[in-house]
């Protein structure tokens, strides 16, 4: 199961913190994509659903859609470009964040 972002309420008492730096796994408390310069954009027409990008993504942000294509969870994609580099049908393009509107 993919981790979900849950809203984080700042504790008002020390006792509300876990007693050690250890807490229930499976969720995140903040989005983590602020450092991305280029984002991968998937061309659904070209994508054949081989899921090679899913296998190579170091952050696990690639998911499969119902029609066997891929979509990217941009909240956690760091823009490393491995998916675009490894895509054999060139369905993924790295696009500069600021230029997105120009596509």
């Amino acid at each position: 199961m993919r981790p979900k972002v849950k809203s984080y309420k700042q504790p008002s008492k020390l006792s509300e913190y876990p007693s050690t730096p250890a807490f229930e796994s499976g969720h995140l408390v903040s989005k983590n994509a602020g450092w991305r310069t280029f984002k991968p954009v998937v061309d659904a027409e070209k994508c054949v659903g081989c899921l090679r990008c899913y296998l190579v993504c170091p952050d696990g942000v690639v998911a499969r859609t119902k029609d066997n294509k891929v979509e990217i969870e941009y909240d956690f994609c760091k823009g490393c470009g491995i998916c675009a580099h490894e895509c054999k049908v060139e369905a993924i393009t790295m696009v500069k964040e600021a230029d997105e509107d120009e596509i």
Partner: protein
Amino acid sequence: MKSNRKFVSGDEAVALGVRLARPHIISAYPITPQTIVVERLADFVEDGSLKAEYMHVESEHSAMAAAMGVSSVGARAFTATSSQGLLHMAECVHYASGARFPIVMMNANRSIAVPWSIYGDQRDSLSMLDSGWIQVYVEDAQEALDMMIQAYKVAENPEVMTPFMVNLDGFVLTHTYEPIELPEQEMVDQFLPMYQTGNKMSMDEPKSLCFSTSPADNQEFKVMQHMAMEGSVDVIRQVDAEYGKVFGRSYHGLTESYRCDDADAVLMTLGSVTGTVRCVVDELREKGFKVGVFKIRFMRPFPKDEVMALGKAVSKLGVLEKNISFGNEGTVFTNVNSALMALDTKVQSKNYVGGLGGRDITKDHIRAIFMDLLNHDRFEERVEFIGMGCEINE
């Protein structure tokens, strides 16, 4: 009470104590002079008398990293180090306490290079005073053995959850032989049940361990760590008292006071030198001098209450220690004076630094210290180096 008497080195006493505590894994990178501890533990694992995994790692840094891995799955870890090895381990030493892993480690107190020296002083562990580990300094092999068992009981207390360093003076304790009483395994098993914690790697209840925090939360975790260390004072006293009831030996909690009640001057000590000072106190008492010795057992948590109580009762205190914080004074002295500052009355205190790089601290030195304390009402010098082999040029 059933017990066995054995004639062993301090290192072997530690190994016997560790075996009784039943650790799951021993991670070891043998460094002089802690070596025999892990050699004996290797023997025990091989002959089947200790059912544990023995991990021979490639450095002290790895030894502590491995111990953290062991502790993170809720198992009991042991490792041992000394001197430069402890310093090499330093990064992981802080990590273990921040992660609140109740690892127990023996450290053989030994000088730090350079000039290169394999002999004993206490600069290694005292330089790690702020690492967040409980630190005890033992006086003899029996205390070393008993503290290995008490250490796990204190460290694993759910309110404490803090790693525990048992310090033995290098060579003076680690490599000299003396008789000890070996407790029965069944009694230790009852005293020290298996470690149970919810904060571990588990398929049933997955947790993220050693997570990151932003500045918005980090300080809160550090405050909790500090509060746990301060709270460990009561746990240390309780565990020591309970140990006394079960095994017939207790160590008076965080400090031990000997003939201090009516004393004009008291010398405070850390570690094995206490025995020599105790002998000199007895000699001087026979000659009519009112002197005493106050053994500081724990440096963290620091025994503030006990030091303040002593400061109320005695007007002249000496602190004898085998370390120097360059450019200031001995670290024990700084801590003692910090506690004394809370008193209304002004106590005259003086720092005697000696034994660096393994130099002997003799009875003559200690007699001279007591005479210095008794014969002066005010101390112009704050720090005096004892046992110098030559004159210190003015």
